């Protein structure tokens, strides 16, 4: 079976330096694939590159059978990819509701949107209380909730999460992992980046470890958990 997302030998970076030195990675359909690695390993860079936010220097990216290398972001997204970006990127001068509407920008079905809105509100009741608040004035964690909720508004085949639980309180960290599993249960594939290695491995099917711009080890999560490479990646060993 062809993977949903296929990244081949991707090289990318900022200014002169390459951050990714030839990364290959597959995301299989209906699975949660996690990407692990120390800070600055290049996880975010990889995500940005595959979404066309960073120019790709060499390598190829496929979604299903379509090669999307070099496509503009909005067209890649249109194929059915949603991203919950790193760093609580809300639209600060829009209300919570408007932010959620932006999440459903490509979703043409009004009824689907309102269903998803309800779903988001049941996960994060706080957002429901605050539909009219400007997102920029919310607390850090509330903004994190909003980016996650916004990511749930579309109708994607693949969701990419980049450190979604940053700044969430323990209760919501748990909730967040539960939601990811639930989404996956609906048949949506997930690419997950998280610092919380233990819990991430617990819900993922497959994992990849990124260090020095390369995937140093991949495999199913049981084997990864024991792998030395993982420890090395995190503890600079």
């Amino acid at each position, binding site marked *: 079976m062809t993977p949903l997302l296929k990244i081949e030998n991707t090289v990318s970076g900022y200014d002169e330096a390459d951050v990714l030195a030839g990364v290959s990675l597959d995301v299989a359909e209906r699975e949660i694939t996690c990407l692990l690695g120390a800070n600055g390993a290049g996880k975010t860079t990889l995500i940005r590159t595959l979404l066309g*936010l960073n120019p790709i220097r060499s390598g190829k990216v496929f979604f299903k059978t379509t090669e999307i290398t070099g496509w503009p972001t909005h067209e890649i997204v249109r194929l059915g990819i949603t991203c919950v970006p790193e760093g609580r990127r809300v639209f600060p001068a829009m209300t919570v509701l408007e932010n959620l509407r932006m999440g459903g920008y490509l979703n043409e079905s009004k009824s689907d949107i309102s269903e998803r809105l309800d779903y988001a509100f049941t996960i994060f009741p706080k957002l429901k209380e605050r539909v009219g608040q400007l997102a920029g004035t919310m607390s850090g964690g509330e903004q994190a909730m909003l980016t996650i909720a916004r990511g749930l508004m579309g109708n994607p085949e693949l969701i990419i999460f980049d450190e979604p639980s940053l700044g969430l309180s323990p209760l919501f960290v748990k909730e967040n992992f539960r939601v990811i599993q639930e989404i996956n249960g609906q048949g949506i594939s997930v690419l997950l980046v998280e610092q919380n290695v233990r819990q991430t491995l617990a819900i993922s099917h497959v994992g990849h470890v990124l260090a020095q711009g390369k995937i140093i080890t991949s495999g199913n999560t049981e084997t990864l958990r024991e792998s030395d490479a993982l420890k090395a990646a995190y503890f600079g060993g």
Partner: protein
Amino acid sequence: MDLGFLAQFFVNGLVLGVIYALVAVGFTLFFGVLDVIKFSHGDVLMLGAFTALATYLGLSDIGVAPGVALILVFVAGIAGMAFVGAIVCKFLVLPLRGAPQLNTLLITLMFGTVIRESVRLFYPSGSNPKPFPKLLPDNAFEFGNLTLRLDSCIIVLLGILAIIFTQLFIQKTKFGLAIRAVAQDEETARLMGVNFKTVVLLTFALGSALAAVGGISTGLYYQEINFAMGLMLGLIGFSSAVLGGLGSLYGAIAGGFLFAALQTVGAVWFAVPAYKDVFAFAVVIMLMAWRPTGLLAERNEERV
């Protein structure tokens, strides 16, 4: 003062206000989408008026009926300026995104100069004022001392319609949401599936089309256009937009009418009417001190 004259001042102010508001709405749109000031806006307005005039002259040569001509004149002006707006955006505004924002102001300012000088030099005897054809019915109704002309009414109506259309377009379609999203966070907007370039180009086209409506209205109302007319109108339009509160369509409208009102009051009040601009701008300074983010301020989203 007798009521007729008061009404007359009011009507004068109203027409002026509509024209200012049309210009101000353009500024607010550009500001809303890219947080830039486009200083060539007044000159685009002038170019719109000249495009319309040239179209009319062409049409009247081949003997098109005035009614049809009126519509075609609008179409030509609007389409032409929408195109110019998009061109400015594509070649002057977008490439400067990485640079300090004020540089956009400078490049558009220079572009305004280029437009103005080009019209002056290359439009046949372009340095002279040009009569604008009377395309609207000019029946006048006298109510005591008030002279109400049909064309003034039509222009006010037209301007208001154009603004309402813009408002609806922005509010009722996703486009408005996209404009704001792009302004606040370009990358995230793209992640949501917004085609950044299209949105920005369309916004510039829309704003410039409104300028064309403003320019043609100015021509129809004053029956005269000239290559320098955009200078003051641009400045006042900008002031109105800021005064009303940048990024707010209603603010731009309020600002436009307020500015017209200030000038009218100033002209009546002072023995030397030239003081009216001193008056209007002095009041602007005071209003800004009172409401630092404009009359209809944006809600402040900054937090710590």
